[in-house]
């Protein structure tokens, strides 16, 4: 039976990976059609010279960094607070935010922003996207950092406080350093999710805050363009490296 299982695994892994491999291979094709005509970097040059793609990549990066910083700080503090003592309200809300379909979160935020804008003279833009990403990322951070805290020995903090540390010092000097690998892996997770999100982002972004997924979506919709293969390959490769780094951190 184990031989059949291994054969099956080969097929299953092919199913998971071949579409991305094929996409990557054809991003190096010199032809615009799905017929191999020789190796070329022409589509990478086209992608890099595309001003819209460049602008969107900068937006995505800025949004990713800002959302990661805010969500990681808020989520880590929250995980620590919940570890000290559970709060049914916060845990339930976090869980709810995790299972609510993206499209529902997107339209609810859109409705909320439009309602707020009646009273304040601001518009949809990068800031609304960042806030949306922070909101849906907090639950990820609390989950990852919370898992790390469950393996942490509470006695260490008590010992620090017996020796005269304040609560804050015990957290800052004893607990937080132990949590850092979990915090870093949570931050990577948030950045990846933020960088990749399309559904929520497209609903709450303004005209000047188009992100990379939004531009890719529009290009994919418009018809076949090998530059999309090139930029997609770069994204898969870049995110793949980040994911592997995150896995390493979580195991350590």
């Amino acid at each position, binding site marked *: 039976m184990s031989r059949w299982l291994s054969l099956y695994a080969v097929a299953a*892994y092919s199913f998971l990976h071949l579409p991305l491999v094929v996409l990557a291979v054809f991003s190096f094709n010199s032809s615009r059609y799905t017929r191999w005509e020789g190796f070329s970097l022409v589509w990478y040059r086209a992608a890099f010279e595309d001003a819209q793609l460049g602008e969107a990549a900068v937006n995505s990066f800025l949004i990713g960094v800002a959302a990661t910083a805010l969500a990681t700080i808020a989520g880590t503090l929250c995980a620590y607070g919940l570890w000290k003592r559970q709060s049914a309200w916060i845990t339930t809300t976090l869980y709810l935010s995790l299972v609510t379909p993206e499209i529902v979160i997107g339209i*609810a935020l859109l409705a909320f922003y439009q309602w707020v804008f009646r009273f304040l003279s601001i518009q949809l833009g990068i800031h609304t996207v960042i806030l949306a990403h922070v909101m849906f990322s907090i639950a990820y951070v609390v989950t990852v950092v919370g898992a790390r805290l469950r393996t942490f020995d509470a006695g260490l903090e008590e010992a620090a406080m017996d020796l005269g540390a304040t609560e804050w010092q015990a957290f800052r000097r004893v607990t937080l350093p132990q949590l850092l690998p979990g915090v870093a892996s949570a931050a990577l997770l948030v950045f990846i999710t933020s960088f990749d999100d399309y559904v929520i982002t497209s609903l709450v972004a303004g005209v000047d805050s188009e992100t990379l997924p939004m531009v*890719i979506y529009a290009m994919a919709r418009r018809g076949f363009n090998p530059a999309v*293969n090139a930029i*997609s390959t770069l994204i898969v490769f870049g995110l793949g490296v980040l994911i592997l780094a995150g896995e390493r951190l979580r195991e350590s």
Partner: protein
Amino acid sequence: MTRLRAWFLAPSALLLAALFLIPLGIICAYSLMTRGPYGGVSGPWTWDNYARLPDPLYLLILWRSLLYAAISTALCVLMGFPLALFLARSGHRRNLYLALVIVPFWTSFLVRTYAWMFLLRETGLINSVLVWLGILEQPFEMLYTPFAVILGLVYGYLPFMVLPIYATLERLDRSLIEAAADLGARPLESLFRIVIPLSRPGILAGSVLVFISCLGAYLTPDLLGGGKTIMIGNLVQNQFTSARDWPFGSALSLLLMLVVMLLLMPVLRRRQEGLL
């Protein structure tokens, strides 16, 4: 401690209240209001939006969403269980094999969906190869069909099935299988009478995760499907963009959330087992 804890919880509590609970509350309120003359919302308060839900057109879309989600979930169980079994028995290279499941899962969902557009389109690779091999006389459109949507859903959410099943299989007491073998059970027999029944919590957790993800899917039916494969997520989005009927869109999204919550009940009770 309590004061420091309050300060620590405050940022997340505020963000969740302002950007999650209040927006959901607004959606609840909008679902009970009337569409304004220019697409906004206005009074009077009414149940009309809910009364419109049983329309045959919307019921068809709801039914289709449930059907696609059910088919995709069944396919994920069939494809995911053997893969989880392989992972649980893979020995010292287990971490590598596990990473090979997780990495494509976390790389861009949009790019993975786009990859299937590239493969399935009329001038795409699968058609080209089939024509070149002489299996097909001429290419046919595989994109924009129910087949493409279900394929995309299975591809997108298969790891959601594999990981919980793997988690239960990993904790399975191996001595039970050895005992069965000692008592004369053949491998297939012990698979069907011991391993599969004992991994039910994982299969259940995976199925619920895949089912609710498929039910709320937006991007997959949007990119791989066409007019005849619209799912409830697309309908919600459409009400908030081109149709500009926010009250009805709100009612629809609350219906979607209600179904998701009902499905999650059995899994929530098992949360203490650490599967989610």
